[in-house]
C-alpha cells in the first residue's frame, strides 16, 4: 500500500471510522514506513488536544431567556416595519402638501422655494444613496451562498 493511500485513511484509522480490512492495511503499512507512523502520531496528538476543547456550558438562566430574546427581536422588527411604512405614508403626504401649498403658491417668493427645494433634493439623494448601498451589500454578500 502506498503512502498516499494511507493518508486518505489516516484520520479514519484514528477515529475508528474505517473497516477492519482497511485498518489491517494501515497497521501493516506503518510497521515499515516511519514517515506515516510519525504522521499518525502527530495527528493523534492534535486530535487529543482538540477533544479536550469542550463547548461552553451556559447557565440555565441563559437558556430560559433565550426564547424571549428571539420573540423580542421579531416583535421589534415588526414594529420597525410598521413604523417605516407609516413614516413613508406621512412623508409622501407631506411632500404632496409641500408641492401643493408651498411650491405652487405664487405668493411665496422664489428664494425660500429654492432653499427648501435644495434641502429636499439633498435628503432624497441621501436616502437613495443609503438604499443603493444596502442593496449593493446584499447582492455582493460574500458568504450568501457558501458552497457546501
Amino acid at each position, binding site marked *: 500500500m502506498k503512502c498516499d493511500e494511507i*493518508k*486518505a*485513511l*489516516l*484520520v*479514519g484509522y484514528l*477515529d475508528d*471510522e474505517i473497516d477492519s480490512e482497511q485498518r489491517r492495511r494501515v497497521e501493516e503499512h506503518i510497521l515499515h514506513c516511519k514517515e506515516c507512523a510519525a*504522521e499518525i502520531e*502527530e*495527528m*493523534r*496528538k*492534535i*486530535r*487529543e*488536544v*482538540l*477533544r*479536550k*476543547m*469542550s*463547548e*461552553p456550558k*451556559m447557565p440555565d438562566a*441563559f*437558556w430560559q431567556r*433565550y*426564547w424571549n*430574546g*428571539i420573540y423580542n*427581536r*421579531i416583535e421589534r*422588527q415588526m414594529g420597525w416595519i410598521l413604523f417605516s411604512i407609516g413614516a413613508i405614508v406621512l412623508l409622501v403626504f407631506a411632500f404632496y402638501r409641500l408641492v401643493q401649498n408651498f411650491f405652487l403658491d405664487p405668493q411665496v417668493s422664489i428664494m425660500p422655494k429654492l432653499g427648501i427645494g435644495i434641502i429636499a433634493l439633498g435628503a432624497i439623494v441621501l436616502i437613495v444613496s443609503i438604499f443603493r448601498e444596502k442593496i449593493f451589500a446584499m447582492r455582493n*454578500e*460574500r*458568504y*450568501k*451562498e*457558501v458552497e*457546501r
Partner: protein
Amino acid sequence: MVYSIRDREIDIADLLLARNGDKSAFHRIVERYKRWAFNIAFGYLGDEMASYDISQKAFIKVWRKLKSWDESQGFRSWFYMIIKNLSLNYRRDTSRLCEEEISPQLSVEVAAPDEEVLSAEAKKKVWDALDKLQPQHREIVVLVDIRGMKYRQVAELLDIPIGTVMSRLYLARKKLAEILKPFWESEL
C-alpha cells in the same frame, strides 16, 4: 445529537405549522434547537456573546424564510447553512476590528496533549489556530473533534461525501498540528 426519522417528522410537522404563523410551533423548534444552534455558531466564532447573537438571528431568519423552505431539503442542513453563513459574515465584518486581539501571543503556552484539561489560555490558542483554517476545514474539525459527530452524520449535515469529510479532516488536523506543535513540543 442523533437525528432519527421520528425527530425529522416532528420537525417537519412543527415547521409546517410555523410556516402558517403558529408561534407555539416555532417556539417548540427554538426550544429543541437552541443549544445546537448556539454550539454550531460557537464552532465558527469561539465567542459566547457573538454565538448567542448569531444563533438568535439564525432563528429569526428561519421564521422569515419558512415560506421558501423546501421540505425535501430537510431542516437541519438548511438551518446549519443559515448559521454558517451568518457566522462567516459576522467574522468577515469583525475581522478587521479584531485583528490585533486575535493575533497570537507566542509567550502563552498550550497544554501538552497528555494534560487532562486545557486552560482558558490554551483554549484561546487552539481557537486562534482554528481561525487560521479555511472555513470548510474548520467546520469539519469542530463537528468531528469538538462536537464528537460521526463522519456519516457530518456528511449528511453538510451534504458532502464521507471521503470529502475524511480528506478535509486530514488537511485540517495537519495544518493545526503545524501551528500548534511548537507550543507543546518543548514539553513532550
